[in-house]
């Protein structure tokens, strides 16, 4: 079952997840999504809300619910295509080999069980520990996740914990089965900066001690810059740029990546911020060509035709990088 040493831990290939809208149309919320996470590596997935980040994460875990469904692609985890597995095989992977921390801890944590019970239950379900041993390990995981006074906290219910503590409990729950990949969807968005910094430190430590690979979803480019090895930028359900995080943020190739970086406070001189015009359309409202075209300052005539394909970026350090934009396709009518 082990992968060969050079195969990535997770390879998502041309994933397409559609939702059936109330008007009957099937519209892709994740489209032609390909990404790779190697063992021990951290990939950041960024983009504004409504870009398809959570749908991508849920798809990888096969947790997309109707009216959504995966219609195309492969999700190869540790050598096996998750899309071909049945529900019992998936349960052996979810939570055991792939841990996940979702945006809203109150959704992922069960309100009627104590934190300790939930971690112990996860250990029991995956056959890692039982009874008293499972309860003792639950407390150790809470301690590892920097939950102060873990013996007492283990006996508390999710609603009794502060936001920061709930997030730590979620991390303990996600890590207790010692997965090789953890998917975190906006793990620190609702938290104060100092608490966020502690959670990120915690993730860094556990990543190093357990050799975890991390798919880190966030809309905070600062968090990605500090945590990730590589970054994938998502817009309109597609990954529009991908590459080593330092290179992408230093010389962004896609106008959307450039726009996201430019709107950060402190990136422009003077008081005004450089905004991206317009907003993310709702599903089904994206234009037929490049999804970003209506908001793009560099838009070309060809941009309104069909979505651009993936190429290496032109004019920047291109090793390990890709972009989905006509500016980088002179042959297709882009400027090059």
């Amino acid at each position, binding site marked *: 079952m082990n992968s060969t040493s050079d195969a990535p831990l997770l390879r998502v290939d041309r994933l397409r997840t559609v939702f059936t809208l109330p008007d009957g149309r099937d519209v892709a919320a994740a489209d032609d999504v390909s990404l790779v996470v190697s063992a021990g590596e951290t990939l950041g997935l960024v983009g504004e809300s409504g870009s398809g980040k959570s749908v991508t994460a849920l798809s990888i875990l096969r947790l997309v619910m109707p009216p959504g469904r995966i219609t195309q692609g492969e999700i190869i985890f540790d050598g096996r295509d998750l899309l071909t597995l049945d529900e019992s095989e998936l349960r052996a992977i979810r939570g055991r080999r792939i841990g996940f921390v979702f945006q809203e801890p109150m959704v992922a944590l069960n309100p009627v069980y104590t934190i300790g019970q939930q971690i112990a239950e996860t250990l029991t379900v995956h056959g890692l520990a039982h009874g008293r041993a499972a309860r003792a390990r639950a407390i150790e995981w809470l301690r590892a996740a920097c939950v102060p006074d873990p013996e007492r906290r283990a006996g508390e219910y999710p609603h009794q914990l502060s936001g920061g503590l709930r997030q730590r409990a979620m991390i303990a729950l996600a890590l207790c089965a010692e997965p090789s990949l953890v998917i975190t969807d906006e793990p620190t968005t609702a938290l104060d*900066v100092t608490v966020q910094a502690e959670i990120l430190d915690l993730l860094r430590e556990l990543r190093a001690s357990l050799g975890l690979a991390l798919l880190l979803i966030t809309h905070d480019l*600062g968090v990605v*810059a500090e945590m990730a090895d590589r970054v994938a930028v998502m817009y309109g359900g597609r990954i529009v740029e991908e590459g080593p995080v330092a290179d992408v943020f230093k010389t962004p190739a896609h106008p959307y990546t450039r726009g996201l970086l430019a709107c*950060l406070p402190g990136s422009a001189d003077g008081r005004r911020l450089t905004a*991206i015009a317009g907003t993310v359309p709702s599903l089904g409202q994206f234009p037929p060509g490049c999804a970003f075209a209506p908001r793009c300052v560099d838009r070309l005539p060809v941009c309104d035709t069909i979505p651009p394909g993936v190429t290496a970026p032109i004019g920047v350090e291109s090793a390990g990088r890709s972009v989905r934009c006509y500016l980088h396709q002179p042959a297709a009518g882009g400027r090059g």
Partner: protein
Amino acid sequence: MTPLLQVSHLVKEFRRGGWLRSGGTVRAVDDISFDVRPGETFGLVGESGCGKTTTGRCILRLIEPTSGQVIFKGTDLAALNAGDLRRARRDLQIVFQDPYSSLNPRMRAGAIVEEPLIIHRIGTREERKARVAELFGLVGLDPAQISKFPHEFSGGQRQRIGLARALALNPSLIIADEPVSALDVSVQAQVVNLLQDLQARLGLTYLFIAHDLRLVRQVCDRVAVMYRGRIVESAPANELFTNPAHAYTQTLLSAVPRVDPADRTERIPFAHEAYQPMALREVAPDHFAAI
């Protein structure tokens, strides 16, 4: 320069743990003083629960301060009777954080913006309609959307509706309580730019409440940092961010994730248990710190 707003020794205590329980009181705002000068943007920053919203609400007397003075244009708001307070409030308005819950979902956008004019009996029906259309234009909303309901707008547009409503009575001071915290960075930039354009056009003064230090640095002239109900440091924005004097300010700044590796600094932990409230003292011109 005479301040537009002078907050002195403001205190707000809440009863701890719900009514009937004799759990004593919490000082959500603990003896804070600051001035806001005409035309400036004064930032109030700090982590959740430090008392920013309570301060804003006490200034407007949406909640009653326990003690202290709030002098606005020379009048102590904390001492006004209901009628005088209502008149004074025309000149000082609030924009809330959450564009989803702060607008009445059953009212149309136009009616939401018009309501303050009706409450204060301003203008005829036609004059009010014209004013609403003007306000829509002012905040960059399409006047054709006047009869839509809040849920039909995006988060950024909803904040514009809240802002149009706040502007309806031509206030001189706007208390903006985390006005862009719920928005994506791109939309956040649009709304922040709008706030700045309106300030330049209408001569507005802002009390800008936020927890995002990057944003505060970008938009504020002067900043006060709150911790556990107190101001622990205040200074011109640039001075505060380049020479933070209080350990807590240093902690906050060091925790902000940076896009540029060159900006990264070592994280500075803060000993919350060892914190002792202290009086502010001037450590540099116009720079005060409780050290």
